């Protein structure tokens, strides 16, 4: 029975009203056909291509164009974007706020990316904070965070989180030698900052719908950091313990909130971490292969059980 026949059947049963039947049947037939997603993707691709070309042109032709012209153009674009956003933004609300116009989010995104290009140009030409320019990233992260919360924009929130991650990475790159342990500590500090920040903001009811973005970023960075500790030749016990605890927490969160991405994260990262410990130093290939067969089957059994109890599509 096709969906149209089924709708007809439900209408005759009285399960849906004739108005509902007419509406749902037209939706099933694609009448009207929504181009919402396609137009948004086109806008996003357009903004990205434009800023890529802008950055490339500025980098290549700045000498011919001159600093004044380049900075005037970039500043004008920046001012125009933010003027548009500030003049059209609705009154701020801590709850989820729909964009006032279909292009609003993309103008804000354009402004944010132009800000990056201008900042990079300024530092490269005038060396205002020479040697300390990781501070630009910190300031950019803060600025983007403000914009994301003011205008309720996930694009810009992601930019803020990646800028903050860049600041942590650059700060450590100033050290004379790059050590995994130091990187790991900074990654954990990043997770702590972003995670605690996300939790506090959610508890205070400030754009609580952003929490999923925080949680996904923090979970992945945290798993990578813990895995790098587990891969250590020595002193990996604590890291393994921490990995197992985070895996358990991630599974519990995923199952209780029905967010199965977190179950998948813990299954994959946990499997990699535990396997690296169990087969470390084992030279017998038969044993290693046997381990992978048995462990893969065991994981399948556990995941199928999880799937049967919790994992059906909602």
């Amino acid at each position, binding site marked *: 029975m096709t969906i149209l026949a089924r709708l007809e059947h439900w209408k005759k049963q009285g399960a849906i009203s004739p108005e509902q039947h007419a509406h*749902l049947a037209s939706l099933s037939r694609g009448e009207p056909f929504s181009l919402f997603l396609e137009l948004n993707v086109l806008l996003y691709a357009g*903004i990205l291509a434009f800023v890529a070309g802008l950055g490339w042109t500025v980098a290549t032709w700045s000498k011919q164009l001159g600093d004044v012209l380049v900075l005037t153009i970039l500043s004008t674009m920046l001012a125009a974007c933010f003027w548009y956003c500030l003049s059209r933004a609705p009154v701020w609300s801590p709850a989820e706020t729909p964009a006032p116009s279909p292009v609003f989010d993309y103008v804000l995104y354009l402004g944010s990316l132009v800000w990056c290009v201008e900042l990079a140009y300024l530092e490269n030409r005038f060396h205002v904070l020479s040697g300390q320019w990781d501070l630009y990233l910190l300031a950019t992260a803060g600025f983007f965070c403000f914009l994301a919360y003011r205008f309720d924009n996930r694009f810009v929130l992601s930019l803020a989180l990646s800028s903050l991650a860049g600041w942590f990475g650059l700060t450590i790159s100033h050290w004379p030698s790059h050590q995994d342990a130091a990187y790991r500590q900074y990654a954990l500090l990043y997770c702590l900052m972003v995670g605690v920040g996300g939790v506090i903001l959610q508890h205070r009811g400030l754009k609580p719908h952003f929490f999923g973005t925080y949680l996904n970023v923090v979970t992945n960075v945290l798993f990578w950091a813990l895995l790098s500790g587990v891969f250590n030749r020595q002193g990996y016990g604590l890291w393994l313990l921490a990995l197992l605890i985070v895996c358990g927490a991630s599974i519990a969160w995923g199952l209780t909130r029905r967010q199965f991405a977190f179950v998948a994260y813990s299954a994959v990262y946990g499997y990699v971490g535990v396997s690296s410990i169990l087969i470390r130093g084992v030279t017998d290939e038969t044993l290693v292969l046997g381990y*992978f067969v048995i462990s893969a089957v065991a994981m399948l059994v556990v995941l199928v059980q999880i799937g049967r109890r919790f994992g059906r599509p909602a």
Partner: protein
Amino acid sequence: MRLYSASSEETLRARKLLVNWADEGLLATEQYQRLKKETVSELRTTNIFLRLVLFLFTLVGVGAGAALFFKVFLSQPLEQTIGIFFLIFAAVCYAGAEVAVSYARLYHYGIEEALAVCSVGFLCAGMQSALFRGSPYSPTPDGVHSLVPAAGALVSLCIWRRFGLWYAFLAAMIFVLFLPGYWTSSHSAQHIVVAVFYAAGLISVAAVRPRHRSDYLDDDFSLVEALLWLGIYLAINLQLSSLNLSAQWWDGGTWNASEFPRPFYWTTWALIWCLPPVVLARGVCQKDRFVIAVGAIVAILTFVSNKPYLGWQRHTWDPMLLGVLLTSVALFIRRWLARGPNGIRHGFTAARLSGKDKHWMNAGSAALGLVSPQSITPSPQPSSSDFRFGGGTSGGGGAGGDF
């Protein structure tokens, strides 16, 4: 041919639509609960995340199992012996996939998918080892060797039809790419053969589709048709299907004119301009989301590859012009549709009608926001700049990149 009954798949489709409609508030909770009971399927499904993880662990288990078998039972086997056992593994994996569906009623569950994929892999490896003693692929004309990709393509097609796995069709298309290399050394002929194969597939799909316009197979055929259009375009666009794509693109792009016969070269250039409007028109007429998307993609690819085709120098501001064009087109279409009665023109609207669209936008915006800064700062041309900024490896839109 299909492993699942039409009624089961229709029921699953109805269930998905019910969930969407309930999320959108088009059905009351009581209505949803009542209708949900009427859309119970015996097929066992799971969500996308568990599906991916189950797929991964099945691949790990099967791969390790095959390796363990060779390690334990065959210490130094002949190439042909390995090939024969690969063929046996292929049969076992395929039987496992069938059993998983027939008895456990798995539907796009990851496990049966991985088993089916493994069966194709083992089949090709087994044929290569058993028939040709494992000699690697070489692009010299040798018709017999084409048996391996031909078998891979056929079995992938069977798996697509039997299990309803769209990526098996994509695998079949990729296998077809290898076929002409065994038949002719002429690059022009190879492009034509691939395009002809895809065109034949497209004609077949276009002939079958009208019968399934309102049933569960429409989405499958829609995706397959879109893939075939994309395949045809990529086969005839000599700039994109070239192997040394990145190396030649910024150097004027004149090499292709000499590698291919001039009439062929310029015919393909004309075709890459003709194809996007045809695909877009087909997608719009059929109201087919995937075909419209492919039409837009190939239109953009045509703009991007036109200058290399003509041998013209690319400029740094070309992406800006492309960006302005894309944004303008999107804004024009949105406004034009919005000005129609109730925001609808010719059956199209720019308004959001499905909760899924919002979900995709939210997930996409968070993910793309993280990756886009890395992609907007290309390395500048070394000859034309006395300084550089870019890289963007540390996020922040390139502000954290390599100065």
